[in-house]
């Protein structure tokens, strides 16, 4: 008995010492930097992460890296509340940035910019604007992604039903109806639908674009005035139009219930003819294989913007679109070695060899760089698909994508050539004491009711009134006006 007890105690104590020891190492030579970001994680183990290893060697720092695919905000809040703020972390939008600034965990960056010459060379005023709160720079915004999404349409179905690519709303409705009722796949069964989407009531972005407005919850500027899209009369017209479309039965009845990749499964199965999606999910070889495996004849094309009563636009596009805001912990103010490490890391990945490392992997292994152009080894680069997790400051989007995915250039240029409705959400913060999430949820629910004919359109004005009375919309409008004026978009 006693022997058994003592063995157990030894084991427990032994592991405790072991566990404790592993925590203490690091010494004082190279500072250890904790980096915490959201993103489709799946980072390899640290010793297999060649990018991590190279960054550590080049910069003389140690990096402790976490990329969380889920529950990121919650984890970040716990770490901040527990007094363990990561040295470098990401927030996803302006509201979160305002929050961390209010909690005094974000380090003001204006005085440190000089230590990041590459950032200064590449960043424009509008990039900085996104990271400023009350005039102070608190975040380095990742340079934005390009636009990827449009309506995509089954071209082979279009031929089968004998119609042309739709140019305006009426033609679009006719195509959707033909895809639903004229058996476009010729299998004799009534098993197809015109339109589906992954984003619920927001799947109709190009329809809103054709009405010269955007989906609910966006800030626009028209004739020098701030317009909140939900209260825009054009938005009401668009909803009324979509309502008729849905009543006709050409929209996937599961539209609002589509979760995750449900719409893509319907794509692969050949059940739908039009979907609002990002080009990668339709043209990346991994996905085209899946489409062709079931329907070898399926051919998906990008649909140009359609015109409507207020012009022609494909979708809304945030002038200050934010994909990621990099924030430094305020604790770094009195840890100069660490601070220096984080600044050098951010600067290194912004230009030159550091940028090439986080874009294309190791020179000579995953790509070769001849001092001028880059050629990518398609086989080898598949080993570093996680590299995007290290692109803190973003990239020269078109150059990157066309180098890495040569086939994508045409599709990207197509999306880029489509006209858009500018919105300004990335610059608008939240007023204190009101809850935007409640407002958003209420809007989504009610708009869905209007779209699906559950609520009569003549109650629309009551709906807008409720937004002002119950959800304090005016406070948001005032805030938007103040923010857009401060950023020079309003007189």
């Amino acid at each position, binding site marked *: 008995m006693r022997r058994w007890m003592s063995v157990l105690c030894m084991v427990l104590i032994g592991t*405790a010492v072991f566990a404790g020891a592993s925590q203490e190492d690091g010494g004082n030579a190279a500072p250890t930097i904790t980096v915490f970001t959201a993103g489709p994680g799946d980072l390899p*183990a640290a010793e297999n992460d060649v990018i991590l290893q190279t960054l550590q060697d080049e910069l003389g720092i140690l990096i402790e890296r976490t990329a969380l695919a889920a529950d990121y905000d919650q984890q970040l809040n716990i770490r901040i509340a527990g007094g363990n703020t990561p040295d470098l972390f990401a927030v996803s939008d302006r509201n979160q940035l305002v929050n961390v600034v209010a909690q005094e965990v974000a380090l003001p960056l204006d005085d440190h910019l000089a230590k990041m010459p590459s950032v200064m060379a590449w960043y424009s005023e509008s990039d900085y604007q996104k990271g400023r709160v009350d005039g102070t720079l608190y975040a380095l915004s990742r340079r934005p992604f390009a636009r990827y999404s449009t309506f995509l349409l089954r071209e082979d179905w279009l031929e089968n039903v004998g119609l042309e690519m739709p140019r305006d709303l009426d033609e679009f409705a006719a195509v959707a109806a033909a895809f639903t009722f004229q058996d476009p796949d010729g299998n004799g069964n009534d098993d197809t639908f015109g339109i589906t989407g992954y984003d619920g009531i927001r799947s109709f972005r190009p329809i809103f674009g054709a009405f010269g407005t955007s989906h609910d919850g966006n800030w626009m500027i028209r004739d020098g005035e701030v317009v909140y899209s939900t209260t825009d009369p054009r938005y009401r017209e668009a909803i009324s139009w979509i309502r008729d479309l849905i009543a006709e039965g050409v929209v996937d009845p599961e539209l609002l219930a589509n979760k995750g990749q449900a719409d893509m499964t319907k794509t692969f199965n050949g059940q739908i003819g039009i979907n609002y999606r990002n080009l990668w999910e339709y043209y990346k070889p991994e996905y085209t294989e899946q489409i062709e495996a079931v329907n070898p004849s399926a051919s998906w094309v990008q649909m140009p913007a359609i015109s409507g009563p207020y012009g022609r636009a494909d979708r809304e596009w945030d002038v200050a679109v934010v994909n990621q805001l990099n924030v430094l912990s305020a604790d770094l103010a009195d840890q100069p070695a660490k601070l220096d490490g984080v600044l050098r890391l951010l600067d290194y990945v912004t230009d030159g060899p550091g940028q090439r490392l986080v874009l294309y992997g190791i020179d000579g292994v995953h790509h070769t760089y001849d001092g001028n152009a880059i050629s990518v080894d398609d086989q080898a680069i598949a080993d570093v698909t996680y590299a995007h997790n290290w692109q803190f400051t973003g990239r020269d989007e078109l150059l990157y994508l066309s180098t890495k995915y040569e086939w994508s250039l045409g599709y990207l240029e197509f999306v880029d050539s489509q006209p858009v409705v500018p919105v300004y959400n990335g610059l608008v913060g939240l007023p204190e004491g009101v809850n935007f999430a409640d407002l958003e949820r209420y809007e989504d629910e009610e708009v869905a009711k209007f779209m699906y004919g559950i609520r009569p359109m003549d109650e629309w004005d009551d709906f807008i009134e409720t937004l002002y009375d119950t959800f304090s919309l005016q406070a948001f409008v005032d805030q938007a006006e103040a923010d857009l004026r401060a950023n020079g978009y309003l007189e």
Partner: protein
Amino acid sequence: MVAVRETFSDRLFLFACYTFLTIMAFLAVFPLLYVVSVSITPFEEVLRHGGFVVVPRKVTLEAYAQFLSRTTIPRAYLVTTYITIAGTAINLFLTTLLAYPLSRKSLPGRGALLIFVILPMVFTGGIIPTYIVVRSYGLLNTYWAMMLPWAIWTFNAVVMKTFFEQIEQSLLDAATIDGAGEFTVLWRIVLPLSLPVLSTVGLFYGVNHWNEFFQAIMYISDPDMLPLQPVLRNILIGAESPTVDSVDVTLPADTLKMAAVVLTALPILMVYPFLQKHFTKGVLLGSVKG
């Protein structure tokens, strides 16, 4: 032996029972069958059948190969196995040491101690205070953070205490008269008689460690130390979010998701049959006579 004649109504009743049980068994097995089938069917085949395959016609282990070839997965298995074994050992050790004294009626202040033990069942500290405690003990980013917090579940301790109380006092008295101390009584008499409760409670703890997720994502920021569940979630989560955040990420197909389910559930499923006999075994069969 007198043969019992089954009447028609007996047979009808039996038939109804069997039918009912068959339906229930089918309802239980069907989702599992579906998961396994999809995981071993080529993805194109799954799509061709609208995502619904019950009996696979073509079989491939590609999804499993894809998973196991990731460097993070074997390591995550090791971590999970370690915290399951070591964690359950710690749990059982500490829970026993709490439950046994509480089961002895001679313990001074037993009532007050019991209240002290049971109170946290109703009121817990909350996420952030717990995080601060774990942090202040220097447990962040150690395997201990997944084993020491919640090392004793009050509920399990109470189950164990109740079981210990059912052991005949005379048995323990007899051992004491033979010169056994408290530890010897516990080790030599009580524990061998308590295998059913130890295996039950051990299984509760073990399954919980195997499924370790929450504490891992709270306290572990080093990706190399993450157990299986968060690692799988990180791989699969893209399939749940409607858009791909990065063009470089390709979403895993359904087959891959199902393979992940099988890979995580299988090992713990395999433990059940070996523990089952302890659940049903008689407890004190023949130990006290007269």
